[in-house]
């Protein structure tokens, strides 16, 4: 074209031809990967024979799936342009539903088969509860039009409230032993929770990166108005995001029950802020529209390594908090300057 504008535009971009596409695709991920490796290396150097032991690896693998699932749940809400403060409450509520069924309805003399049946039933119920909780969030956000942070702040209280009312604050115990056995079990040497996590990582990856839904979700998260003007059904897209969020939270809840052999209204309350923190670390854009499953996975592993490693050094748990916060701010700054660079290139 004759227009001078475009000519020098070409020149400009031409210069960065090579690294450009790579940076566009993997820039932020490489940064994370680097951080993850270095944290691992540091811990390994400080105390190889403990940190590199199989036990430590197992323990790490056992722990991060719960936080990981909650973070994925958080990610979907954030990508849609909102946030979900109710993930932990949802998780506990679902877990409590499942536990109530398992404790109250399984006949004492039930055979293994019957018990398994009931357990499956309870799992289904838990997942349903999660979806309904998410649905409710989604409707309040996209139909009624309350800001997501307020909606989920309210439902966080509401769902935990329901859980408290159902349990009178006590924890539900006496679940069939299989539950905790499975929870602590392994398949081909891989801890069961990790297997579940991997399953849902794949699920999330498909939904977010491969299906047309994921594309629409990200567009909606970036700019709902423009998306509406592009013929996207913003309402249903958003609602689905929260339903998925609720579903993932429910799975996390079941894992918590499997790990503790009990369900209680306020289990894992510390996970909430951690989930947001890890999501942002993982490159999820707090303003919506962007989020990479791979990023979240690396972030959660990094954080777990950090936390288990620090535990190994017998520092107080408060110091973990301190480190987590520090890492978050560092990542924020890193991204900031990284983006500055990018925009300079263009």
């Amino acid at each position, binding site marked *: 074209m004759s227009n001078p*504008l475009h000519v020098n*535009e070409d020149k400009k971009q031409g210069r960065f031809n090579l690294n450009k596409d790579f940076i566009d695709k993997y820039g932020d991920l490489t940064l994370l990967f680097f951080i993850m490796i270095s944290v691992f290396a540091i811990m390994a150097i400080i105390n190889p024979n403990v940190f590199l032991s199989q036990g430590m690896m197992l323990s790490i693998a056992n722990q991060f799936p719960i936080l990981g699932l909650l973070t994925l749940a958080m990610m979907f809400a954030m990508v849609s342009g909102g946030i979900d403060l109710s993930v932990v409450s949802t998780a506990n509520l679902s877990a409590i539903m499942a536990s109530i069924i398992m404790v109250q309805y399984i006949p004492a003399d039930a055979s293994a088969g019957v018990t398994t049946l009931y357990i499956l039933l309870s799992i289904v119920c838990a997942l349903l509860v999660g979806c309904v909780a998410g649905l409710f969030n989604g409707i309040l956000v996209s139909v009624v039009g309350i800001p997501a942070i307020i909606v989920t702040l309210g439902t966080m209280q509401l769902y935990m409230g329901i859980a408290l009312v159902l349990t009178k604050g006590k924890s539900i115990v006496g679940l069939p032993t299989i539950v905790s056995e499975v929870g602590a079990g392994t398949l081909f040497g891989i801890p069961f929770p990790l297997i579940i996590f991997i399953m849902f990582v794949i699920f999330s990856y498909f939904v977010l990166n*491969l*299906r047309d839904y994921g*594309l629409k979700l990200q567009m909606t998260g970036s700019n709902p108005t*423009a998306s509406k*003007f*592009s013929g*996207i059904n913003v309402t249903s897209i958003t609602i689905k995001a929260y339903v998925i969020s609720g579903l993932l939270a429910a799975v996390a809840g079941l894992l918590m029950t499997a790990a503790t052999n009990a369900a209680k209204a306020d289990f894992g309350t510390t996970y909430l802020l951690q989930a947001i923190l890890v999501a942002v670390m993982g490159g999820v854009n707090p303003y919506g529209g962007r989020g990479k499953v791979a990023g979240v996975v690396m972030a959660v592993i990094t954080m777990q390594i950090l936390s288990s490693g620090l535990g190994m050094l017998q520092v107080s748990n408060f110091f973990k908090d301190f480190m987590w916060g520090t890492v978050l701010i560092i990542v924020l700054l890193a991204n900031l300057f990284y983006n500055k660079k990018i925009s300079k290139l263009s």
Partner: protein
Amino acid sequence: MEPLIEMKEISKNFGGVKALENVNLTIYPGEVHCLAGENGCGKSTLIKVLSGVHTPDHGEIFINKKRYKRLHTQESIQEGIQVIYQDFSVFPNLTVKENLAMGYEMSNNKKLVNWKLFEKIAKQALETIDVDIDINEKVENLSVADKQLIAIARSLLFNARLIVMDEPTTALTDKEVQSLFNVISNLKRKGISILFVSHKLEEIFTIAERATILRNGKNVTEQLISELDTNQLIYHMTGREIKETTYESEFNENQKPLLKLKNFGLKYMFADVNLEIYPGDIVGVTGTLGSGRTELAEAIFGIAASDSGTMEINGEEAKIKNPRQAVKRKIVYVPEDRLTKGLILEQSIERNIIISTVENLLKKFRLISDNKVKNSVDYWIKNLGIVAKFPKRNVSVLSGGNQQKVVLSKWLASEPDILILNSPTVGVDIGSKEEIHEVIKEQARKGMGVILISDDIPELKQNCNKIVTMDKGKVISIDHISEYAMSR
């Protein structure tokens, strides 16, 4: 006479876009100076440099011989420069009186708020352009016109030396425009300079004395208005003799219309719109900002569904409640506000192109097929001559014209029957503007029906075979282009 303002060699880039290139502007005390040029030629940007909103990449500014490499908004205000921004720049969450008085009180660096005084200032401000608006109403509840009036009144408060008016009349009725012009001549008598930006040539000829004309971010000429006639002015702005080419539909009218509106209406917005769009039609729609054109377009597209009258698509009655239904019925809409409604700036060019057709680009399990996506994107980039070397980069790096083409290709990809465009060439450089017009005509010749909303009368005259004029939510005339030419 000593110039009040001298801007020298000003350049400004936005990402890929060269908005200004070595532009000069000189304004003398007490003159009404007109800044003219096509959409997107850089007028607002130049103004924002003068008001300190944008830092120039290069160049310098003299105010009464005082040299500035860059101005800060405060300095600019202190130097007595007041701006009526194109987008009004009012505070929706504050009351009218506050919007009017706050900036003024700040410039007198008051630290405390005296509400009584605020009311006094506000009242007096509204009197100067004799309109009356409830000063206790929140601005978010006002009409576009009222907002613009407030922006004007606010700027008059200051004992300014220069008042910049960036398209101050877009939303105003003739009466309101008249009283604005009276105000301007009063100011002039007081020795206050005006920098006046408008697309409306008659306004320029009535009010302005001298004109600086920009094209494509560069100076073209600086002349006394008295030395110019309409055609010269247009020539300087566009760089072309306005060739009286007009568009004629090649389809005969005795077939059934693609779209037929009967007493189509939306409460508070527009009413009793009767309109028929036939294959090959390019129907221009014009009227003041706030005449309801956008609302009409958006009602057809289902953004805010109409609540009275009927709509027929290809002869059968249809109710369109949301954009998705519209797209299903092959009606698509290019909104006027490209940066916030047309494009998703934080997402890639590629994604912005395929977003409306992604369902057709799937492989099994509804996975997105990278191949299909690539093919489709490459096709449109080539077909519309979009200059985008890296389709995976954010669409925000593109120039106005290329951005608009991305919006177009998004819709053309969905093979619509009816294409509605709202001010599609605003902020678009001349080259692209031409090309976009060509694309539109080409589609129409293939049998598409087009509705083209614009302020830019020449644009309509050259590209439409019918022109609809709206005012206050009513259609006041539907003329065939030949009649329209005569009626004006």
